[in-house]
């Protein structure tokens, strides 16, 4: 699971949980897999990304030290930064670990790169 995908996940469907975002990542195996760098795509994608959540996630898996706490106004011109963001969003891959709901503490396993977000019926708000 890439951090871009993580940025799109919430656990708000759990009964009693309001936001469920961002899910905390506890990773036991992380790989970096090369993906072609495409600057327009990164810039376009960043408009959909919640930056604080990405920053937090990247730090949780050990790839956040190069990322600024806030994305400045001129980030589109900063190729060095965009390449770091590309790495964090698309190349860092969580293979094994778990996601933790920030409100309820409910854990979701990540196995072989796939998060399992299934809930049993009694956990879901109707």
């Amino acid at each position, binding site marked *: *699971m*890439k951090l*871009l*995908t993580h*940025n*799109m*996940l*919430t*656990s*708000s*469907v759990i009964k009693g949980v309001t936001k469920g*975002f961002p899910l905390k990542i506890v990773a036991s195996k992380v790989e970096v897999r090369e*993906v*072609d760098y*495409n600057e327009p*795509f990164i810039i*376009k*994608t960043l408009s*959909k990304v*919640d930056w604080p959540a990405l920053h937090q996630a990247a730090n949780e898996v050990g790839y956040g030290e190069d990322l600024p706490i806030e994305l400045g106004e001129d980030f589109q011109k900063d190729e060095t930064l965009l390449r770091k963001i590309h790495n964090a969003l698309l190349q860092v891959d969580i293979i094994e670990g778990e996601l933790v709901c920030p409100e309820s503490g409910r854990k979701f396993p990540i196995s*072989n*790169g*796939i*998060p*399992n*977000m*299934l*809930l049993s019926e009694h956990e879901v708000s109707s």
Partner: protein
Amino acid sequence: MSDRFKTPLLGNVRDEDFNQVYEPAEDSFLLLDALEKEDNFLQTLKPTVCVEVGCGSGICITFLSQLLEYPALFICTDINPKAAEMTQLTALRNGKVVEIVVCNLVDTLEERLAGTVDVLLFNPPYVVTPSSEIASADITASWAGGVRGREVTDKLLPKVKSLLSSNGVFYLVAIQENDIDDIQQLMCKNGFRMTCVASRRAGREFLTVLKFVRQ
């Protein structure tokens, strides 16, 4: 013929895997044919976010990712962890990068993906069955659609409006028994225009791929 249109190879699967995951059949291939027909439209759309609900073997999302030659985020979901694994293998075997989440429909993605989905695919369980067969833990869930074969489809339809981007498109597989006129009316109320992209008779089923864009 361009490699973009080739039918994706499935991941290294054993015959018995199809006891647990829906094996691509006429409905899957009709959806591939429909996407191929839509090539010009999709190239012009330049999608950034593509989502398939219920990816099964992964053949459709993999096909879509090879059809679109520029980068996009391809996310798919399935309620069946075995299907998610097979999708991963299928994407990998065809050299594609597809992100997979095991969840019910778009439960875990719908809030954050709201207004961003450029292409949404759904080949739902559309077979008319008793309601009790829906969402079972086994392969029945891949085809059992309950009353009119619509019970699962009807859970996704109300979410399409909020998920799709302003130019977004939704492709849905349906059969005659699903009452396509009724689907059209429902979606029309949500501001969508429906067209039929491809149809084919396959045995007892008359299959159709429906396309929805905002009016």
